[in-house]
């Protein structure tokens, strides 16, 4: 924090100074999405196991890193991230995507009700099944959720590329985060649009998750449609330059 470019009067807080030094003053450009934290602020590490390791087990790098972080400025952890053992980044991301108008309480409760509905359906199947089938029935809703979203991820995607005044849909390999995003987006869109007016979201979402877990259902069909389109447009693949 040595010598920021802007001089300040006595009353300015430290944060404001660092903010001003972070913003690049370009004429005609205003930042739309910005954070109150300057570039020297590091992300918090929310991992109980990392901090509970006894001194002897730490490697040189980890010791150095921990010593360094003692003097660094660290951002506040977001309210939605906990250090609980039940914390799941995929579930958090899905909940945030389901949220409407900032109503996290509602989104979280819908997510919990969906997981419970999945569990109850699987338990009923379990009790109705014979002994051999019982071993194959998965009752952990988290496993079902992760597997269903993995089954919905497309392998290859389409990107509109402008060539000669026309947009062509070019098949392109997708990054991991784009694939996860597309799987979640398709799932939520399907559950919001193609359900009966009186059916509740947890019921529909649990049904779709179970179908995707078994590689059936409309979301898997959408993934296959995307793959077929990419296969049909494979002649345009050379338009891609990356």
């Amino acid at each position, binding site marked *: 924090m040595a010598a920021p470019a802007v001089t300040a009067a006595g009353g300015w807080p430290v944060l404001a*100074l660092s903010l001003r030094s972070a913003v690049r003053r370009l004429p005609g450009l205003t930042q739309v999405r910005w954070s109150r934290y300057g570039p020297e602020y590091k992300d918090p590490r929310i991992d109980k196991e990392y901090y*509970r390791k006894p001194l002897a087990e730490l490697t040189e790098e980890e010791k150095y890193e921990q*010593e360094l972080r003692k003097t660094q400025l660290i951002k506040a952890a977001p309210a939605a991230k906990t250090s609980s053992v039940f914390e799941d980044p995929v579930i958090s991301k899905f909940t945030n995507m389901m949220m409407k108008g900032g109503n996290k309480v509602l989104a979280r409760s819908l997510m919990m009700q969906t997981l419970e509905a999945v569990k109850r359906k699987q338990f009923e199947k379990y009790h109705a099944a014979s002994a051999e089938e019982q071993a194959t029935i998965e009752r*952990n809703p988290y496993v079902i959720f992760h597997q269903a979203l993995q089954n919905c991820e497309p392998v290859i995607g389409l990107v509109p590329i402008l060539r000669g005044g026309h947009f062509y849909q070019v098949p392109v390999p997708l990054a991991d985060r784009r694939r996860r995003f597309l799987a979640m987006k398709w799932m939520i869109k399907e559950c919001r649009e193609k359900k009966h007016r009186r059916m509740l979201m947890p019921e529909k979402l649990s049904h779709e998750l179970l179908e995707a877990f078994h590689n059936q259902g409309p979301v898997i069909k959408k993934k296959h449609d995307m793959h077929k389109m990419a296969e049909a447009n494979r002649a345009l693949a050379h338009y891609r330059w990356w």
Partner: protein
Amino acid sequence: MLRRMTKLLSGARQLDPGRFLHRGSPAPQSLDAHLDDQRPRAVSCTSEDDPARHGEQHAALHYHIPLQDLKTVFPQGLPPRFIMQVKTFNEACLMVRKPALELLHYLKNTNFAHPAVRYVLYGEKGTGKTLSLCHVVHFCAKQDWLILHIPDAHLWVKNCRGLLQSSYNKQRFDQPVEASMWLKNFKTANERFLSQIKVQEKYVWNKRESTEKGSPLGAVVEQGLTRVRNATDAVGIVLKELKNQSCLGAFRLLVAVDGVNALWGRTSLKREDKSLIAPEELALVCSLRKMVRNDWHGGAIVLTLSQTGSLFKPRRAYLPQELLGKEGFDALDPFIPILVSNYNPKEFESCIQYYLENKWLQHEKGPPT
């Protein structure tokens, strides 16, 4: 500015989070394992399925209710989440707890010559009042009492469609839907009594139909079920007859009402001219209020207060004075209050053990089975 920055840095060094990071304390997993070895695995279920034989030694243990009994004794009245749990696990297990044991002890020692004693289960939200009531109802059903179980009195004072003006008393209102539903469940629960008990007066329904004196109570119930317009009057007649005849000693009567504070609160029902209806103007509420008075003998009255479905009551209210109001408290006074509180550690352990036995806790980071 420099002075302020150094103060910030020295403040951070004083806290020194590093000290807590490198304490070198034993990892928590080994601590849990150590505890598990010392503590014997708690048992959650008991084999004693007859509520009459439940005692202190069964406190915090679960007992099974056969699913066939569930359909006859509890066609209504179980909380919806409990019904979901029964459907998921394919078995109905109820925990034996202190308030229910206390009530069972009182009921076993009732003197049927004295006027009916009123027991009021009260407590904060979600502590188990309804399930304690169900435990008591199961006990009385096993002992062959006649059960008059109103699952939720709040359902009779709100969201009622089809209010009719009563033919019996012009100032009152009938609720055909709620009355007929209750009559259907009453019939399922008390089949064997309907043919034994005889009506003591003649009741004329309309120009063509009437029930003669001495005909079984089942005829009144059938009339209420077939002619839905007369269902409320049928309910009133059933309650009146049972009250008069319980003194004779042919059967023992249990009146179990869940959410009794609805009878003395406000309603959310409106007349055609949008003016509010008071609870006194509902025929069902009037007959129930008469039933809950202790001017009869030969049975007991078990009531539950409930804020969950109540109208215009604050969320934190749970004491009898707060929920019943002055009018209700005076009407129910004197009663025996029984506090139902949250699980104590032993009951909590038993509940978790029950879930573990049924493999309900599926997360891999959850407790080991």
